[in-house]
């Protein structure tokens, strides 16, 4: 026996979304993430993707959207790591590896910025409300833990930096770029790499100077 309510607000006009529809919207967003990393962004429709994120979050499927976005970013970063590992060492210094690393870092940061734009409604609402890691921060974390600090990359990075430092009398643009990237990853990654690749005649003061010059 339900008591019929006499004080009922006008039900808010709101569409309801079941799990299957939420999943298909998440699929569209994760497909877009793949296109973004493939540098095929021109074909994507921002309004459409934004609206899908909005509708999913509004209908209380924010957790699903967030985890799908995180999963897609993780997969893309894994792909970048795989292709980075496949880079052959060129003759001489570690320059080729470092240049490829920086190239993929640039691609990653640009992609993360585009993904953040696409999900900015979730960023302002769900992520803030439930204190999730922001997409920007998630991108940094994935790159640090999934690429730079991975077992496949870190040894080659250290070796390449060692060779660069041994070969050059002064730090060049390449080293400055690497240092800037490592600085942004925080968690003392920069000092970890520099200590591991240390050569006696290289000073941290000189490194700091080069970082500030190229920023």
């Amino acid at each position: 026996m339900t008591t019929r309510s006499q004080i009922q607000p006008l039900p808010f006009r709101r569409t309801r979304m079941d799990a299957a529809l939420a999943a298909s919207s998440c699929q569209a967003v994760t497909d877009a993430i793949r296109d973004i990393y493939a540098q095929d962004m021109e074909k994507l429709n921002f309004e459409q993707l934004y609206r899908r994120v909005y509708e999913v979050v509004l209908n209380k499927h924010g957790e699903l959207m967030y985890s799908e976005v995180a999963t897609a970013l993780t997969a893309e970063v894994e792909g970048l790591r795989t292709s980075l590992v496949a880079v052959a060492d060129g003759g001489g210094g570690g320059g080729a590896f470092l240049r490829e690393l920086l190239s993929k870092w640039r691609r990653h940061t640009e992609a993360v910025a585009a993904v953040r734009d696409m999900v900015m409604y979730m960023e302002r609402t769900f992520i803030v409300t439930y204190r999730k890691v922001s997409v920007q921060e998630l991108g940094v974390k994935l790159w640090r833990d999934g690429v730079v600090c991975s077992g496949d990359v870190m040894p080659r990075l250290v070796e390449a930096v060692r060779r660069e430092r041994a070969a050059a009398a002064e730090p060049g643009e390449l080293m400055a770029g690497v240092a800037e990237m490592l600085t942004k990853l925080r968690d003392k990654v920069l000092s970890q790499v520099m200590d591991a690749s240390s050569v006696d005649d290289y000073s941290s003061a000189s490194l700091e100077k080069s970082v500030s010059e190229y920023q």
Partner: protein
Amino acid sequence: MAGSEAAAAQEAEMDPDFSGGGGGGPSFEFAFNSVNFSDRVLRIEVVAGDDDDDDDHAPGSSRDGGAGSLSDWARHRKRRREELLKEKESEAVMPDQINCKVEPEECDAYEENQEEPVAMMDDSPPSVGPDGDDGPSMDSPWSGGVSTPVLRVKNIYISSAILAAKSPFFFKLFSNGMKESDERQATLRITDSEENALMELLSFMYSGKLTSTDPTLLLDILMAADKFEVISCMRYCSQLLTSLTMTTESALLYLDLPCSISMAAAVQPLTDAAKEYLSNKYKDLTKFQDEVMNIPLAGIEAILSSNDLQVASEDAIYDFLIRWARAQYPKSEERREILSSRLLPLVRFSHMTCRKLRKVLICTDLDHEQATKCVTEALLYKADAPHRQRALAADVTTCQKFAERAYKYRPLKVVEFDRPYPQCIAYLDLKREECSRLFPSGRMYSQAFHLAGQGFFLSAHCNMEQQSTFYCFGLFLGMQEKGSMSVTVDYEFAARTRPSGEFVSKYKGNYTFTGGKAVGYRNLFAIPWSTFMADDSLFFLDGVLHLRAELTIKQPTV
């Protein structure tokens, strides 16, 4: 002014180029839908929205995601039934209103459509084709294969810089490198229920003003502003809604906003005002019991979160909640879920009587483990040192559970002895405001306390002195109705008195009680009411009157 500042801050964050010119202060009303100041066309596709989706998907929707979605689902389904009933009831009225509202827009849209095809064919034939082909097939948010039919299309001349300055969404739409960035025409797809609100929002973005005072439309605009991230409009809508006269219906509307909106900083003042309105209106819960029984969950949460709730005791709140939950959620599984997740946290178990706490433990509506936890926590609080009790009641993180409400039956501190003879001492604290409200003939009862198995209570009065010459403060000792025993009690009333703050005896007596009788003194302090309540009164210490009643049974009971 706040809106302008927010807009300026927003611009500073988005793009330094806009910080100089934009500002948000000046009105660009002249540029709204003006071809002369336009650099793009905004194509608005209106699709069918809520009703179709509700009808098509409600039966088949699955409940997943746990507690939250289950209770939300129950709420939505219940509201859907009521919505249908309401639609039937207002059948005679609604069609006319709908016709009045829809007709002008249709004319307007028709006119625009007549103009646009010519302009578009002349200016941008290449972009029309791909959009037309891709749109319907690519964008099917509500079903896997079937595209949503477009009811109508409106084209608005827009100034992209103005929209981008006000809204991060439009800023990114026009600049983030996806398809729309390079096109002169951008498409927005909205449901028909969003159409009016979107037009008002776009107008606001140019003019900084809203003309509507209809709460329902303002709420729609608030939702549109949230969707397209026009924070200045969210804040403005919230302010307008807060300034309108609030009713129970409108307050419940504001509390029923989707979670993602109600959590926004811009909307907090509105939801806070709605909660305050409801908790003030219904604070005499007993008086409004029947009305509150029909209030939905969000309103119940607001009312029962209030410290100013005037009920006999926390026991009464618990009883009401169980009754409300049984009425609103007939299915026991749903009821248990909603009690567990949303309702029990509203109850302050530490202020319930032990007799009622026993009933909590055996209540079949509750999850037994949770009930046990609540009761254990309450008993530990009751047994705790007074200074820790005060700390818990004052701490912001725990006061929601332990702070005392404005109970009608005032809580007591009681010390009991059995030897050498039955005796108990009851301490009652009354705030100055509570005493003030007693004038001219009010009463305030304490909760019950027990002596030799018999229940007693104290009663504070404002009453006329014996010779009816002036009002004064009276204190009485009453015996509860239950039991047929008669018992002779020696009693003494005392009150803390300035300047020492010591308890000073005010009246001694003895009385043979039978069920329901009361005894006491009509003018405890031997002064008129006005003297008693004066700022320099001897009996209020830091705004509190400290009373003590000592009861002793020295003769055997008969």
